[in-house]
């Protein structure tokens, strides 16, 4: 019996294929079994880069192309994204490890590469959100469920504006206008924060919600600083 088990284990170790597709599929399959045996939860789909970097003007000056920085709320995981898409004021930023975020006027409108992507969103006032006293707004977020059908969340939001809010960017302290957007849908809610350059609609920094699975992220619009605005 021991000999048989030894032979079987040897066969498992010798498993291979000349076809890279078959080989990767089998590897993924074994990984599932391995995770089940180890009772390890499914691997997190986070796209994290752990870096200990001092984000200052010197660091930013190394980039000769537009960048933004995404960060988890605890600041432990960050990723630098470059602009690769640009169509009718919609900017899409892509990270090296395969996530992308799209913005219109600094507002997150779509993500790709997260496990629960914000596939589509509908806002009725994106052009005026930071330019007038918007008190209430409605927005719709769409996700794909497990069967590739839409799961739609309709949020009713209240927006509170607070002027002269000091905020830190790189190694600078700036006065900003802070907009706090509190949104509620039937099953969930979130609070977004936008730090906007006074008297403009340029969002310098924001905390924006993606989805229930992925929660919120901090977004640092370093592109604004690369444009010699400061």
């Amino acid at each position, binding site marked *: 019996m021991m000999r048989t088990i030894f032979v079987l284990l040897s*066969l498992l170790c010798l498993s*291979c294929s*000349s076809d890279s597709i078959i080989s990767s599929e089998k590897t993924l399959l074994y990984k599932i079994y391995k995770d089940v045996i180890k009772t390890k939860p499914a691997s997190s*789909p986070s796209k994290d880069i752990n870096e200990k970097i001092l984000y200052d003007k010197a660091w930013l000056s190394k980039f000769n192309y537009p960048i933004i920085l995404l960060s988890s709320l605890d600041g432990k995981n960050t990723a630098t994204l470059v602009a690769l898409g640009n169509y009718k004021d919609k900017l899409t930023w892509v990270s090296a490890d395969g996530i992308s975020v799209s913005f219109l006027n600094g507002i997150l409108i779509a993500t790709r590469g997260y496990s629960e992507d914000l596939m*589509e969103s509908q806002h009725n006032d994106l052009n005026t959100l930071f330019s007038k006293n918007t008190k209430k707004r409605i927005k719709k977020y769409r*996700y*794909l469920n*497990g069967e590739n059908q839409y799961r739609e969340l309709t949020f009713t939001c209240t927006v509170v504006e607070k002027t002269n809010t000091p905020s830190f960017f790189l190694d600078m302290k700036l006065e900003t206008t802070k907009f706090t957007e509190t949104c509620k849908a039937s099953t969930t809610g979130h609070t977004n924060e936008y730090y906007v350059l006074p008297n403009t609609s340029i969002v310098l920094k924001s905390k924006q919600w993606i989805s229930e699975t992925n929660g919120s992220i901090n977004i640092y619009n370093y592109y604004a600083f690369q444009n010699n605005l400061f």
Partner: protein
Amino acid sequence: MFRNRICIFLNLLISVLLTTINEVNASEGIYETPRILNTYGMPGSIDTPTAEVFPEGQFSVSSSIFGGTIRTNLSFQVTNGVTVSFRYARIPSARGNHRGYFWDRSFDIHYLFNEQKKYLPSIAIGLRDFIGTGLYTGEYLVATKNITQNIKISGGLGWGRLSGKNNKANIFGLSNERIAFSTGFGGTLHSNHFFSGSNSPFFSLSYDLSPRLEIIAEISSDDYGMEVATSRGFKRRNDVNFALKYELAQGFSLMGKLMHGDAIGLSGTLALNPRNNPYKSGIEPAPLPLLGNKALIETQSLMKSDIFSESAELLELDGIILLTMKIENKFVNVEVFDRNYLDVSQMIGRVARVLSKTVPLSVEFFKIKVVDYQAGYSVSKIIIERESLREFELKFDGPASLWKDVQIENASAGINSSFTLSDSPTTWSFYPDVDLLLFDPHFPINGSLGWEATLSYRINNSTIINSSVKQPILTALNEIKRGPKSGLPNVRSDFMFYYRDISTRPYISSLTIDQFYKPFKNIYGQINFGYLEMMYAGIRAEAIWKDANKPYAIGLDLASINKRNTYGDFSILSNNYSTIIGSVYYDFQSDWNVQLDAGRYLAGDYGTTFSLSRNFNNGWEIGAYATLTNVKFSTFGEGSFDKGITLKIPLSWFTGKKSQAYSKSVIRPITGDGGARLHLDDDKFLYRNIARYGERSFNKNWKRVYR
């Protein structure tokens, strides 16, 4: 009259099933409820049913043991109201034909026809063991009401086995004598006895001690007549059962129980809902973003002048191979193949994005043909307007708006020989192999563990030599005790001779030359010649008519084959058989697919196979089939006719990464000679692979086009 009522009831039930077939409305966020299962794998307390249902789509595997009884159940929530279950049970009985036990298969159906309201309870009706030998046969009407958030009561009336104790006069005014029926060889539907004879009440009360822990008491009317009459069973001291159910993790629960004051037992339930994809939209890397004209011109000025190689490199990053590219005025025609993406819409979206980045702005339309890697032909050609792709990329309802401008056409006939589909003509693999055999009363779970080596040689784009050699190393399949069935030529039921003679020797599982054809733009064909499966060698031909824009197809499958030597070597026996089977396929707009086959089967019998499957729009497939031929049930023997359950599980569901790999299992309760066909791998059948590139397939997954 009562019989008519039952017929009306059954018709209504079928109507309800068909009308609710499109409903997809499980409680948002709740996909698995393992604690609702009773020992029969159906919605219930301990042994008794309750008027509840599982979340739509839930697939459960449960096993229960107590007092000599073992029940293993596969349950599926077909629609919001309809639950079905297949069971394999060991039942202690003095008449038991396997060392004092019966090993019995049975099917249940449960329909919730009234959901719980503020003051009214939910009400359900159910048939237990309605296709089978009838050892568990019974019917019930049950109502359930949540008194508080934590307390739930259920009460109902049971007939048949559920009227063993405390029986009262039949509430329909019928005789209190249960109508007798002959189950014959099992596996057939008898309805005359439904709700006949006396009926008995049953009750249950449950209390949630915590969100995970539930305590249950019930009064059961099942007298366990067979089980208490043998020393292998238990003593039924009273009518009461007690249990504690604990949900250990999402989708997994345990139940400890005391049955009728005597037998202590344990049940385990694993529930999984294919709709509850853990990776939602997937974790594949983001696609290439789209650019406005100014940025595009700047980007293209930095690219290589060779548009083909630039496009091919970008597509290869997504695992898609660009085969040909031809720019003609406003159109770019490309041919690609892909072995990674399960969703063709997502793959097409990625191809279109790359083209929008690489081809000159003068190109306004992308015509994309996807070449099937296995067959070498293209099924369809999809035409996407470049500006629409860009315009709707980040818009609300973008995919739906884009879909209006998309055209899908049948691809031209023939196999394109201007490219080669693989770098190397030879591919091989070497992996462990598991072969499982279920439902043999001597070895209810039997199988072998060994290795499989495959070797393929691609002669050209449409001709491949495929081979597979297997060797069981650890096996009990060579000890199968039962013999072949009598009455028909042994075309399948003598399978045990192959396992016995192969034992732990290496054998040729298959060795075929496979030739694919596309003689017309709607006609697809293949010929397989050689050692087709463990038991047969010969020639098989399949042809299918399928229009890319139609949800249906027709096909013909012919085979002329000889039995192989039982040692699995190159020898072929003189017994010659043939099959001629015509097929009609229909893919409903909902997730249901139907296939009807008719013709001559292996043993020379004539009949039809009806297959119904629920195709979740993520690669999962759960289905069932039944074959009825002109072979008498008595001639077929145990089980009466060939039937089975199919289960297809995609790898990408578990990983969130792009992959077309899947595992397919066919659970055949009975192996007989009537209605027998060749046992071929799934990829040896053309239809699914053709339908994958059809309009309906694109449409169903189109929301992923921008993913």
